[in-house]
């Protein structure tokens, strides 16, 4: 990356000096991730794009890959090979810390996929279109069940909030600790602040559990 190469950490106990000119002695950053979830078309990818330092990438993944314990594809039922597109972006917070943001595919039928992506995530932002609240129920249920810290963020399309936040909170019936906020998925600062809300919630829980 930036600085002069130094010998690689000799993870494999072999001399690395010979190759140091060609090998950037880059120590990988600590990778952390957050999940941006919600129904179809609520602005997940837009939110990821607003803060990501790269154009959001789409990788194709399928449910088969998380059929853990199955080591023979022929044993995997057809229905578990559905291919889903997963968008993600990233933010290098400092040379030793990189935040990945994964937009989970919209619908509840991708439950397995979610487990695969959400495992180990710091927290989740559940994006909501207040005109279609039902769409976010699977996501809210999922994170509640998983015990993962999350916040609900109502996307204010064109600055309009069709329903007051309190009404949204009531409709979602989430516990008081879960933050319910409004944000603009197109605005970098707004998305950044929303992620901070999720993390502060996660931090409060971690501190309480410590």
């Amino acid at each position, binding site marked *: *990356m930036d600085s002069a190469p130094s010998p*690689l*950490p000799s*993870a*494999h106990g*072999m001399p690395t000096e010979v*190759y140091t000119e*060609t*090998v*950037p002695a*880059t*120590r*990988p950053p*600590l*990778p*952390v*991730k957050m999940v941006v979830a919600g129904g179809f078309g609520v602005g997940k990818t837009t939110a990821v794009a*607003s*803060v990501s330092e790269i154009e959001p*990438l*789409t*990788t*194709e*993944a*399928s449910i*088969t*890959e998380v059929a*853990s314990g199955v*080591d*023979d*594809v022929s044993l995997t039922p*057809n229905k578990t*090979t*559905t*291919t889903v*597109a*997963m968008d*993600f972006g*990233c*933010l290098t*917070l400092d040379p030793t810390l990189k935040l*990945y943001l*994964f937009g989970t595919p919209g619908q509840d039928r991708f439950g397995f996929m979610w487990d*695969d992506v959400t*495992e*180990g995530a*710091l*927290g989740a932002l559940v994006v909501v279109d207040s005109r279609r609240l039902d769409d976010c129920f699977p996501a809210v249920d999922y994170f509640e069940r998983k015990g993962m810290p999350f916040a609900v963020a109502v996307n204010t399309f064109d600055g309009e909030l069709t329903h007051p936040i309190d009404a949204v909170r009531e409709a979602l019936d989430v516990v008081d600790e879960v933050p319910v906020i409004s944000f603009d998925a197109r*605005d*970098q*600062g707004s998305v*950044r*602040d929303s992620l*901070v809300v999720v*993390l502060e919630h*996660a*931090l409060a829980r*971690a*501190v309480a559990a*410590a």
Partner: protein
Amino acid sequence: MSKQGGRQQNPAGPAAGRDGAPQGAGADRASAVRPFMVTDGRVAAEAGLPVETQVVATAEGLGKIGALAFERRAIVEACGAPLSLAEVAVKLRLHLNVVRVLAGDLRAGQFLAVHVPRAGTASDIDVLRRVIDGLRAIPTSVGSRDAD
């Protein structure tokens, strides 16, 4: 979803050709090779590797890269600087889980160093604080109608 090379039901036959025809049948955005052929039909072997796991070529791996071909070689070549498994999948247009399996192989062969985030990172207070501070520190003026 769209039609895909995928949906492999049976492990790859030996003559299937792991490199496949590069621009051959099914040459849409996905590889023409059915996803799990390159892993000899193995799936989920490395399911424990989180998608953000960092992989980086080792000096040893780059030194003996001639021993590799096709996807395995491409992965090592792509990882001169650390990348997440997800980024490798996108870069090489490979199925995420194929990358997981191959990364496991390449680690075993000492071509790649695989840095798996420590379990418990997600609830680590120091990590959470660092991420919060890091996010707050990013300038928000670029391309945004602004906030602060």
